[in-house]
């Protein structure tokens, strides 16, 4: 395990410490969020185990970036790292997270509090439990406003009602006086979105915002997120395991596997011609792409546990195209308009979405 960590790491500390200020100016004009060499390890009884390995990506201003991957690939962990919400104990984070020209990794807890909610909003996966049951939703939104703006209670309440109206809740003033338990899942997720956007953040992280909702509501919520993002110029980091949603909503996407980015590029070209067998497998697994009543396809096996990570390509053991070269650790290489972590990227012809 130690040897692998040694080969994979490109001294992330140096990135965090020295080189940031140089590239900052150049970065701040183009990218809103620039995550570089983000690695996260957790400690348990058996020692440190690395959950994220040199994750790197950027989100431009106003852009919608999708992160896709199976459960346990590190998607949510990436989001929590950006928010600085990783547990304090038994957790180690290296690398740089440059947001709007500032390295969040170097900010202290009080600095992060200024960012959270104000600059970066977050919508959680479980709208059923992400709202405090003992306060009305209006109070909770108003509280977020008052955390970041010196406004009166009354003004905060008014802004809460406006925010509820902006997420198309019928009767927002009435809804503001409701307790979360009297709202449906879809309504609660709207409330969460209203809460995340009430301070007009520059970036909204939506961690599987529609997973807990039923399909008809999913479409509405997605539409709402995209529309609000466009109207307010908020960039959207959209985390999902549903490639279909990404196809509909994002401009660029990254596919994550076992704590690594495996493919990174424009959605359209990735869907047409995936370069990484894992991305192709995800595409293949979408229901509805095959003849009716035929067996749904799936990727065999499952995500390896962080302790038993293969030495070579992490996807290798599940890959139909694995070759001798795949026994070596893979690095992200530039191919055409994107980055891919596969040694055979250029000589494989993988099926894309049926065109």
């Amino acid at each position, binding site marked *: 395990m130690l040897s692998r960590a040694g080969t994979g790491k490109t001294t992330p500390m140096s990135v965090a410490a020295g080189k940031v200020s140089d590239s900052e100016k150049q970065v701040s004009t183009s990218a809103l969020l620039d995550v570089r060499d983000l690695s996260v390890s957790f400690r348990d009884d058996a020692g440190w185990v690395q959950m994220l390995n040199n994750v790197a990506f950027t989100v431009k201003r106003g852009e919608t970036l999708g992160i896709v991957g199976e459960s346990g690939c590190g998607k949510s962990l990436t989001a929590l790292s950006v928010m600085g919400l990783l547990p304090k*104990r038994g957790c180690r984070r290296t690398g740089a997270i440059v947001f709007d020209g500032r390295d969040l990794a170097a900010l202290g807890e009080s600095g992060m509090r200024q960012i959270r909610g104000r600059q970066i909003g977050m919508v*959680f996966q*479980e709208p059923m*439990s992400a709202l405090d049951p003992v306060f009305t939703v209006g109070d909770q939104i108003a509280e977020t406003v008052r955390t970041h703006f010196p406004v009166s209670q009354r003004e905060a309440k008014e802004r809460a009602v406006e925010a509820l*109206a902006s997420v198309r809740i*019928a009767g927002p003033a009435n809804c503001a006086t409701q*307790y979360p338990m009297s709202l449906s899942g879809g309504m609660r997720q709207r409330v969460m979105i209203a809460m*995340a956007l009430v301070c007009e953040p520059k970036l909204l992280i939506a961690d599987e915002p529609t997973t807990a909702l039923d399909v008809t509501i999913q479409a509405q919520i997605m539409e709402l997120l995209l529309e609000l993002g466009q109207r307010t110029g908020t960039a959207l980091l959209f985390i999902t395991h549903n490639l279909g949603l990404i196809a509909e909503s994002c401009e660029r996407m990254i596919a994550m596997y076992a704590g690594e980015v495996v493919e990174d590029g424009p959605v359209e070209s990735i869907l047409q011609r995936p370069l990484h067998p894992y991305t192709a497998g995800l595409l293949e697994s979408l229901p509805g792409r095959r003849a009716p009543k035929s067996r749904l396809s799936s990727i065999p096996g499952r995500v390896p546990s962080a302790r038993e990570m293969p030495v070579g390509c992490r996807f290798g053991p599940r890959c139909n195209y694995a070759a001798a070269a795949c026994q070596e650790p893979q690095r992200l290489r530039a191919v055409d308009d994107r980055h891919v972590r596969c040694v055979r990227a250029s000589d494989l012809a993988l099926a894309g979405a049926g065109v």
Partner: protein
Amino acid sequence: MTAIAQKPAMVAVPRRSRASRFLRWMRSDIRAVLSIGFLLLLVLVSFAAPVIAPYPPNDQNVSLLLAPPDAQHWLGTDDLSRDVLSRLIYGAPNSLYASFLAVFVAVLLGVPAGLVIGFVGGWFDEVASRFIDALLSFPPIVLAIAVTGALGIGLTNAMLAVGFTFAPFLARLVRAQTLVVKSALYVDASRGFGASTPHIIWRHILPNAIQPVIVQVTLALAVALLAEAALSFLSLGVQPPSASWGGMLARAYNYIEIAPEQMYAPGMAILLTALAFNALGESMRVALDPTMKRR
């Protein structure tokens, strides 16, 4: 904004004023109304004792020792020929003061301790919880006797001791609740919206953890009342000639063969008050349960 009218899903329910909602709640829970009414009456009696008591509490009429109830003395007279009704009335403030003091001390010590222990967690929780276990192993009355022995005999000292023995119970309860609440997603979500740790503890953890505590507190009031009675019975509480229900019961106990009716008045007062606190606690539990919150 134009989209507001799209979905008429939620029919507007007119919000009632606080007062009318309170009235509705009263109608729906007669037990709570009775117990609150009784306790309010007690408070009123406590404040108005000099006005409504028929005699001063320590007035003696030596011709009437252990007299049975009659028109002059509705509840009779005690072994020192003092009017029992008057002493009962003058005893009410002492008994209420004793209960509230003990519970106040318990809340003051127990709730913050439980919140901090639960929130910090880790090895601190381990150490602090074992310490609480150790405190819990003290029998309350024995500890109260020890404290009054050290600090001097008197109602305040006795009830401080009782409060001290209640505190670990509350701390343990609050700690357990805090452990549950702090792992709730809305706590993380609140952090994600920029809330500070004290804010999270105060605004999210405390209100969500406090409901069983409020119930416990009302029940503890009843236990404290009984503890006061027990300590006064052991003459460690209210000192003669001041009146208290426990003390009255203790005196009456000595003459149980001659004048058994002497025990009824203070006994019933203790019983009814303890019952009222308990009933109130039960009603609070139902009323405060967020999953049972009615509109």
